[in-house]
């Protein structure tokens, strides 16, 4: 499986080191610089949108506290591109928000009043930062629940104010947790395609896309892809190292529940602050989409929508069936030796690399295979399904592996004592135990494949729009209303996946 994931990437490496790439450095400055600024801003937004609610929820009793524990995971249900489509549509010059302002105050032109630029790097940072803040939130909250309450109470007893306790005790104490979250945010930001594309922020992913498809310069595109890929890998490796050092221990038993009392006024203030990321990252866009969908009810039965839905089910469904099957077999049969562990870690590459990069490598691989076997691989559904499986293998395998490892070795021994074949033990004992994990793996793979945009956009067969590409075309055409039904289905599936993830954290 590692070979299946790595082959496309290796071809990219080979291409990146060949050919004429005089345009590489200017392109790198331009796109790399923008990416750097965007990552810094996004991380900044995600930090505050994640850590403040986590702090309040861990420490204080205020209205909605229990709801926010799970509710603040919801922004993850919306892919970034969906946020960008909704906000650009709503806040651009000709959109409802600015039209209303002009109506109220009798303005006519843009230069008569001040309004923020929607298609800007700042907007992209806010949307990506809030949309990805659940990573920071979830990790930080788990860490604070574990051991920060005692420390915080001690700090308060020793005379430190609440604000200073937060800055001097809580933030350093939970650093490994939020740092992990922020690194994930950074990686996802580098990998993002749909959001930056719609908001006209020229990051590396977009640079690769344009250099390849608009300039036709495959070699420079490959070299840019390698650069972006290397950065993502370094960030990932650093994150891995950080995880090992998560070393703050507390000798006291964790205190969960309860919490410090606050005044009514303060409590509602906390509730408001916690609601903010939820509103920006979930409630507002969903309400807008529902409104648009209600205005366009016939779209729910339009041929294009139904076709896209059918194709999505077919493609994501095939990827889920075969992908989960492969993940289950590997998780059950490949023993956990250090060598295998490294191999399986390597498959994470497919997931960590931006979709455009993976697509580029995959096309090269399929071209190579297709021309040597003289069959059509690019432009067929099978190629795309292969892409989904390879790209998301690490996720489905990870879920299955965690389940398999929780099964005690004595089960295998018992099977041997009874003289059963290992496969009998798989089917009769292990798979029934792994039901829950199997369901998780299926849902995660299905939802990831369903909302995947860049790979699908580049590789889909003729006559096959999926929900994501259907949405991409309409949004690009500034006609979001007609795509609202498709968007809602993606959201619904996303909510399902987030619920499963929340549940998975408990088992």
């Amino acid at each position: 499986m590692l070979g299946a994931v790595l082959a496309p990437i290796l071809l990219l490496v080979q291409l990146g080191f060949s050919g004429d790439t005089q345009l590489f450095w200017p392109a790198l400055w331009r796109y790399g610089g923008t990416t750097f600024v965007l990552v810094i801003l996004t991380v900044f937004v995600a930090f505050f949108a994640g850590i403040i609610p986590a702090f309040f929820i861990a420490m204080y009793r205020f209205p909605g506290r229990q709801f926010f524990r799970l509710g603040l995971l919801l922004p993850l249900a919306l892919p970034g591109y969906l946020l960008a489509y909704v906000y650009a549509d709503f806040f651009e010059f000709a959109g409802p928000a600015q039209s209303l302002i002009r109506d109220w105050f009798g303005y006519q032109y843009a230069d008569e009043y001040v309004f923020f630029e929607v298609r800007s790097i700042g907007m992209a940072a806010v949307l990506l930062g809030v949309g990805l803040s659940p990573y920071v939130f979830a990790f930080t909250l788990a860490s604070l629940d574990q051991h920060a309450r005692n420390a915080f109470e001690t700090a308060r007893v020793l005379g430190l104010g609440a604000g200073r306790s937060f800055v001097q005790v809580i933030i350093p104490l939970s650093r490994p947790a939020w740092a992990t979250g922020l690194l994930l945010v950074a990686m996802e930001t580098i990998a993002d395609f749909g959001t930056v594309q719609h908001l006209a922020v020229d990051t590396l992913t977009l640079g690769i896309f344009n250099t390849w498809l608009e300039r036709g310069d495959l070699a420079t595109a490959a070299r840019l892809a390698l650069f972006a890929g290397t950065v993502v890998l370094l960030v990932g490796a650093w994150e891995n190292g950080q995880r090992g050092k998560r070393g703050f221990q507390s000798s006291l038993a964790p205190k969960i529940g309860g919490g410090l009392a606050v005044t009514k006024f303060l409590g509602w203030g906390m509730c408001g602050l916690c609601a903010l990321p939820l509103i920006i990252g979930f409630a507002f866009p969903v309400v807008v989409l529902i409104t648009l969908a209600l205005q366009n009810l016939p779209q729910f039965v339009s041929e294009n929508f139904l076709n896209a839905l059918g194709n999505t089910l077919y493609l994501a469904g095939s990827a889920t069936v075969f992908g989960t099957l492969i993940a289950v077999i590997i998780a059950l049969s490949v023993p956990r030796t250090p060598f295998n562990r490294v191999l399986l870690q390597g498959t994470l590459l497919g997931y960590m690399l931006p979709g455009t990069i993976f697509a580029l490598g995959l096309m090269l691989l399929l071209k190579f295979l297709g021309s040597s076997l003289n069959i059509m691989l690019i432009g067929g559904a099978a190629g795309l399904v292969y892409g989904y499986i390879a790209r998301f293998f690490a996720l489905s395998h990870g879920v299955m592996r965690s389940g398999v490892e929780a099964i005690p070795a004595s089960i295998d021994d018992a099977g041997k004592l009874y003289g059963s074949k290992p496969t009998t033990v798989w089917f009769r004992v292990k798979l029934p135990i792994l039901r829950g994990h199997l369901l998780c793996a299926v849902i995660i793979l299905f939802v990831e494949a369903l909302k995947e945009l860049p790979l699908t956009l580049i590789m889909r067969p003729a006559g096959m729009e999926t929900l994501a590409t259907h949405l991409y075309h309409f949004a690009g055409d500034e006609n979001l209303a007609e795509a609202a039904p498709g968007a809602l289905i993606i959201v619904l599936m996303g909510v399902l996946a987030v619920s499963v993830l929340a549940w998975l954290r408990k088992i």
Partner: protein
Amino acid sequence: MQRFLSYFCAVFLIGMGSAQATEILTVYSYRQPFLVEHLFDKFAAETGIEVEVLYAKKGLIERLKLEGANSPADILLSSNSLRLLEAKDAGLTQAITSAAVAEKIPTALRDVDNHWIGLTRRGRVLYANRNTVTEGSVTDYWDILQSDYRLCLRPWRHAYNVSLVAYLMESVGEAKTEEWIRGVQARLGRKPQGNDRAQIRAVNAGECDIALANSYYFGVMQADPKQAGDTENVVSIFPTLAQKHGTFGFVSGLALLKSADNREAAIKLVEFMVSSKAQKIYAEVNHEFPASGADKSPDEAKLDSKPMAQIFAKRSAALDLINRVVD
């Protein structure tokens, strides 16, 4: 478990197999679905040949290059014949041998070797806000630089703008073109963004005084009750260039691909597309001028008729110029 698996395999195989029952043509289209879908449906109803389309704004030629001889594609459809020339240059196309096509489409609107043919034409024109731009004061691409108009256009590197710049370079030379780009750049009402429709909307809402966009969007928007309101304050102008040349006219068209397995069916589709009734429908739905058109409207007569190959030759220089002048 085993039954479960065999069930899924069966469903999968049936799904793969059912796609190959009827005669199918594959079209890669840079044109949007709403412009061509109904024509392909009509073709299918008449001939029984199904048309499957891959729609994309970018990358079809790159994908054809990677797919090579195994590509499923038979025909490439584009709103911009420069792209068809690019496909020809990459060795992806073959000659369309059809007397009916040669008869219908004038030589100026097809490739010298008949690798591609034009289907419709439209102008890259100016849209002015009727409240802020005096009628008759802007009739040339150069006039938009005369007073302090706020200008709008889509991103410079979009193929439409690159093509226009190539046309300017071919007509008035590089130095004058650079001066024009700098002039436009200095008068931007907002950062270049959105599609052509968004430019017309911005003029209507007063965000800009003049915008550059293609002629047919205006017609499409006026015909759609939901969008007609966005055109109330807008007039379209087919400008001259430096008083000597006409409005830059795009030729939309199609190319026959080398990878076409079913050449006969593909030629049938080409002949259908140039037939009088298809030309009429295509042009009317798109608000474009049919390539086979005999009687020209006053606006159509303003379109420049330089051969596309000349403009194509300037395209990469045009992109370089844009990259040099714009950020």
